[in-house]
């Protein structure tokens, strides 16, 4: 076993050579395309992640050349290493697709249908997964598990109701931030991500939990409700940061940087972790050196903006009118009441007052556990069971 061996593995009738110890999921990603099983909890850059969500289930039709018996049950491809001569069925096996549909239904049992409110909508893994693999309607008739929304420090907001317990944020806090104050408490249906004695998370890399969260459970408070993801323009940028590499993706509206995230690869995984200062504090274009627009997959809703190859049409009016200027011209910005507030300059979500004469005001932390403010018990949001 001393020499490095490559294993031949066949996934959906496509054969690929991979190193020993590779998981089925990584082998499938090496092939790419439709045969890659979706993953909600597995994250390449986080050790020990995977194995919780069961969306990456595949069937192993033949274990290996030495022992070609099929595996009795569907296996989680993110946790199963390949063997030489293994034959895997993913989208070619209807039983796998059926099982995945069931898994999606289970994941959605307690997930609220608040995508219109959720800031993750448009780049949500669960949204994509349920669109591609799920059923149209739910069969669940009982009361859903609900929690109050909690602010974990000034920057991060936790909507526990949306959480699917993938443990990614726990591993991120352990392995990237190096100092974990939150974890999964309780068991079964009661389990929740929480900081036990209302500890806030302050580590300069803790903002990465927002990026790894596959749903909208952990969201950026500085971006809260400022815009929809698909109306913001993704741009690759970098800066000289003393703590991290400073390579980020800016989400801009006009010249306003509304949000900063880490760059993600084609599997939706962060390429390089970024620090809190880059993520939350640098919301001006002058802070960044912009490399160019991000390439967005054309199937993504974010590509609806067509931000690459913008062609501005020529103004033909004066050419047609022999050099005359139009006598009456309405500039939409004189009339429109939208886009008058610099949303990137306020720290939290905009409120009614922000748009009515007080452009620097922002929403207060209803449950800021860092400053010790009281928890939101009045039921003022949709995540609370008392409000419809």
């Amino acid at each position, binding site marked *: 076993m001393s020499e490095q061996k490559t294993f031949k593995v066949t996934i959906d009738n496509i054969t690929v050579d991979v190193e020993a110890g590779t998981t089925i999921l990584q082998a499938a990603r090496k092939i790419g395309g439709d045969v890659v099983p979706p993953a909600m909890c597995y994250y390449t850059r986080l050790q020990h992640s995977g194995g919780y969500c069961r969306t990456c289930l595949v069937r192993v039709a033949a274990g290996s050349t030495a022992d070609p018996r099929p595996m009795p049950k569907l296996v989680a491809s993110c946790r199963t290493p390949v063997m030489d001569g293994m034959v895997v069925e993913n989208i070619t096996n209807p039983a796998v697709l059926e099982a995945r549909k069931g898994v999606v239904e289970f994941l959605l049992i307690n997930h609220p249908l608040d*995508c219109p409110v959720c800031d993750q909508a448009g780049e949500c893994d669960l949204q994509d997964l349920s669109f591609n693999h799920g059923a149209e309607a739910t069969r669940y008739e009982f009361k859903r598990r609900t929690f109050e929304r909690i602010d974990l420090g000034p920057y991060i907001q936790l909507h526990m109701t949306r959480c699917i317990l993938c443990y990614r944020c726990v591993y991120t806090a352990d392995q990237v931030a190096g100092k974990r104050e939150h974890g999964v408490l309780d068991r079964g249906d009661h389990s929740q991500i929480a900081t036990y004695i209302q500890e806030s998370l302050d580590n300069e890399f803790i903002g990465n939990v927002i990026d790894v969260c596959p749903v909208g459970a952990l969201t950026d408070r500085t971006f809260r409700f400022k815009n929809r993801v698909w109306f913001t323009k993704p741009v690759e940028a970098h800066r000289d940061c003393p703590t991290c590499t400073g390579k980020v993706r800016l989400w801009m509206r006009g010249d306003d940087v509304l949000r900063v995230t880490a760059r993600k690869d084609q599997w939706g995984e962060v390429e390089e972790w970024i620090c809190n200062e880059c993520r939350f504090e640098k919301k001006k274009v002058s802070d960044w050196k912009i490399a160019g627009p991000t390439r967005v997959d054309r199937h993504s*809703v974010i590509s609806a903006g067509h931000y690459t190859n913008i062609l501005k049409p020529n103004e033909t009016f004066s050419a047609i009118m022999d050099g005359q200027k139009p006598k009456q011209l309405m500039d939409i910005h004189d009339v429109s009441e939208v886009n008058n507030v610099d949303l990137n300059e306020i720290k939290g979500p905009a409120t009614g007052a922000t*748009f009515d004469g007080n452009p620097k005001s922002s929403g207060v932390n209803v449950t800021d556990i860092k400053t010790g403010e009281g928890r939101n018990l009045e039921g003022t949001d949709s995540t609370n069971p008392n409000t419809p």
Partner: protein
Amino acid sequence: MQLTKRSKQVERKPMTIWEMLYLPSIFKGMAITFSHLFKKRPTINYPEEQRPFSAVFRGLHILNRDEEGREKCTACGLCALACPAEAITMEAAERQSGEEDLYKEEKYAAKYEINMLRCIFCGLCEEACPKDAIYLTQTFAPANYGRKGFIYGKNDLLIPDPNKDPEGFAKAKGELGKEKK
């Protein structure tokens, strides 16, 4: 040169005496004109009389409220995304405590604008809306002397509160759906 076989040569015969009198042809034409006086009129006096709209007519937009008078729109942006004319823009805000009777959801549209100069009344916004918040009513979009008047904000679009102004609410809701078979 004859291009096709269908072309006909124009007859240029001199007119007969009957034709040269002109009056018979004039009376013939006038008879047709007078006969229309006794037929059913195809036109109506518009502002006083109005024709019934088709059940699928798409007119002026409204932003809906629920039974308690709270705004339904949550500024999800799907109408703006669906809009082929890019007429809709909005800005979202967070509902603060004390505003629960104004807005239905945690997030609401603080500003909502439809550029009626761009709108093509296709109804895709109505179709896209997940919250039943935007509807196209059976009202014509009114004319205006300036283009500025066609930028409709929330004041122009929002339906009257059903508790404070039930008549205005019923009027804004219109007759849509009532004549459905």
